[in-house]
């Protein structure tokens, strides 16, 4: 059977068959490795911020691979990895518990028009000052 001839000599050397096998069996999810969530700390004392996830067979290797995936560019002082299974999360379909009705604007920070009131107060004070 013919093999793949590629512009990349490494691919040609692999002598891969150029015709696809007729039937490909899909692999099971996570058939080889677990996933870990990665948290990155830029400065000492700063927050560890979630930056993504990766595949690894153990937490030791997860930490090493995290260094390459998420720590090799820019400043890093520390990293955490957490097995994705250990993350206890809200179910996606329960997102409605975070919803709030439009009438309750007073609960939003944006609803407090404090700046306008402060400006108005300042103007008032100024006007009184000049008047005196």
């Amino acid at each position, binding site marked *: 059977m013919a093999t793949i001839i590629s512009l990349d*000599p*490494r691919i040609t050397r692999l002598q891969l068959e150029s015709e696809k096998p007729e039937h490909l069996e899909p692999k099971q999810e996570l058939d080889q*490795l677990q996933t870990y969530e990665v948290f990155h700390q830029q400065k000492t004392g700063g927050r560890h911020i979630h930056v993504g996830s*990766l*595949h690894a*067979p153990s937490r*030791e290797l997860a930490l*090493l*691979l995290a*260094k390459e995936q998420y720590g090799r560019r820019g400043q890093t002082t520390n990293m955490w990895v957490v097995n994705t299974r250990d993350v206890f999360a809200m179910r996606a379909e329960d997102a409605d518990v975070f919803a709030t009705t439009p009438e309750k604007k007073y609960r939003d920070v944006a609803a407090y028009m404090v700046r306008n009131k402060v400006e108005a107060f300042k103007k008032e004070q100024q006007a009184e000052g000049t008047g005196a």
Partner: protein
Amino acid sequence: MNSEAIVNLLYRVADDELIIAHRHSEWTGLGPILEEDIAFSSIAQDKLGHAQALYAIMHEHFGQPEPDQAAFMRNADAMRCSHFVELPNGEYDFSLVRHFLFDSAEMFRYHAFTDSTLEPLAKLARKVIGEIKYHLYHAQTWMVQLGAQGNDVSHARMQSALNEAWPYALGMFEPGPFEADLINDGVFVGEDAVKGQWMAFVTDVCRDSNLTIPSDVDPVYGGRSGYHTEHLQPLLDEMTEVFRIDPTAEW
């Protein structure tokens, strides 16, 4: 200080780094998982950086060609790398075992360089030792993972890769013609000293990985005096293909 001895030493170390960098970079895009693909590529870039820095020391202080010329304009017989780094990558097990045996040697070699009387070399070693520490940590963790914490298949593959790699790994310590000068001048502690530290360390890690070091094996020598495997020249041809189109081009 004997400059001929120093140049001989630095070419040995730099050429090893250059060639293993190229071998590691051959995993780019072909690694078994994305994460390892990136790790090997990143380590390859570090190794290339070390080689460049060593060529630069030879250029600035010992009248050798510029780093690009030194790296890309020499044929196999002028190279001083060991056979170990020339061998094709093979499967990932062999690449990992070689990565481990090479970087544990490099760790002790650069550690010795931090005390070198050759100041630019000592300065470089102090700067890059953290990178090498990480390279070794990466390799060592995989050794233990696949040797002791994997399954029968991973263990068998690692053991077979170790058997294959061992005589070539011993060849890394092929003494140069100026060992005594380098030791007397305080430039380098010598291949025998590094080999002793390396052997003790590698023995410990192999024990932790349930792997057995082959006994009664003769080292494969020749690379340090310009005799190479048939794999080196094709590697150099491929590596320098673009550079040789126009060696004076600005990159």
